């Protein structure tokens, strides 16, 4: 199962490291990563593979949300199909 992790918030040092450490510790593989700056706001998008994930989807979502709070950004994880369904025919 693949998912998209989005990180949105004020840019600061170490965001990528903080997010990827949460993922790496739980066996989640980062397949692709892109980032843009939208009017001062940092938006990072990761495509991740959850095949080797060592916890449930809801626990991972919770961990990411907590990590987001500590660094002052919003982190969401959603299954990739959502975006495919909406934007690809």
């Amino acid at each position, binding site marked *: 199962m693949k998912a998209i992790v989005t990180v*949105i918030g004020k840019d600061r040092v170490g965001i990528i490291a903080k997010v990827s450490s949460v993922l790496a510790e739980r066996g989640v593989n980062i397949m692709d990563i892109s980032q843009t700056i939208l009017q001062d706001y940092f938006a990072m998008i990761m495509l991740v593979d959850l095949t080797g994930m060592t916890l449930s989807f809801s626990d991972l979502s919770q961990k990411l949300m907590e990590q987001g709070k500590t660094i002052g950004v919003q982190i969401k994880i959603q299954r990739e199909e*959502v975006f495919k369904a*909406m934007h690809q025919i």
Partner: protein
Amino acid sequence: MIDSTEIIETIRMIESENLDIRTITMGISLRDCPDPEGKAARKKIYDKITHHAEKLVRIGDDIALEFGIPIVNKRISVTPIAIVAEASHEENFVSFAQTLDEAAKAVDVNFIGGFSALVHKGYAKGDRILLASIPEALAATERVCSSVNVATTKTGINMDAVRQMGEIIRETAQLTKDQESIGCAKLVVFANAVEDNPFMAGAFHGLGEPECSINVGISGPGVILSALKKLKGASFDEVAETVKRTAFKITRLGQLVANEVSRRLGVPFGIVDLSLAPTPAVGDSVAKIIEEMGLESCGAPGTTAAVALLNDAVKKGGVMASSHVGGLSGAFIPVSEDQGMVDAVQRGSLSLEKLEAMTSVCSVGLDMIAVPGDTPPETISAIIADEAAIGVVNNKTTAVRIIPVIGKKVGDVVEFGGLLGKAPIMPVSRFSSVPFIQRGGRIPAPIHSLRN
């Protein structure tokens, strides 16, 4: 990877434009539950509902989390109880409503629809008992919704039922007067009711439906509104195109969720209902979309044309995005549930009569309209008759969900709370319809119903 601007667009729709899946509704057939002993029938009903819907809420919540899209309501619709309870020897069906209420609470759904009867051509024994039980049933239960179909294009309008519904609505209002007559918010009078509608209060599981099915109602007025905000001064061609494109995207999401719910529950997918269902949240308003097209306030001249465009473009955009489209599908124009409509009424731009005109081109009918508590039952019946006539002649579903709030007069505002919102009491014509309603009988089906 998917384009990052598209990912951000989806997230923006969900986070700031109130995009959500409004409801996943499980339809459950109760056709194998009748029993001469009412108590035995009720046990079968309770067991069947709680068995089939046991995992509905949990699976709905799991999918909402994984897909990152809110699924606001999880609900159940059942076979019209008039048919299921008819075989029992009982003379009152209130206890059947209580059983539905208990089952709904046991599986934690917020509404259960199907305390219903189909009387468009006449009453069978069970229909008569059910109708008489509606006021008490709605007062004695919390989550049960009731609907009565009084007309179809094929059969015409049952004016005896129309007359009785006016009385039932008044009585329901009276019995729930301590809660702003909220019983009436759970009661819909239909013409051309559909069998697979996932939206409350009018959902029931029709006789042509399978044993169990999943119907999904999408929403998203906020998303359409924000897309139209970028089109100041553009022609209607562009407006219609933009609505279509946006509706397509929203519906694709609805179809994805529907497939996943259906797969995980092992229950066949029925339909996606492409409805623009507003909520009291700021910006999640159909009235605001109409105003965005260039009208100072909803109800101003041009409103009916705006609703017509919107209703049609939503369907055209959504239909290709879903394998099966059904239910009511179109733009809802409830008053209390849409802050923009409430504002328009309070500004004086939107009247009951204008709403009636809008219902000839919107998806359903007069919805969540609060009127003075002393409105005569015959006037309510006559409003229902007008609405039914629009549905029957135009071959569409129409409905009336009107709330005569006991003790309230024009200018007052009532709070229903939650998704039901708040409603200003609207003025009703002071001219009498009594002899008209007293005639009874049936208004024959229109000539264009004879299509065979």
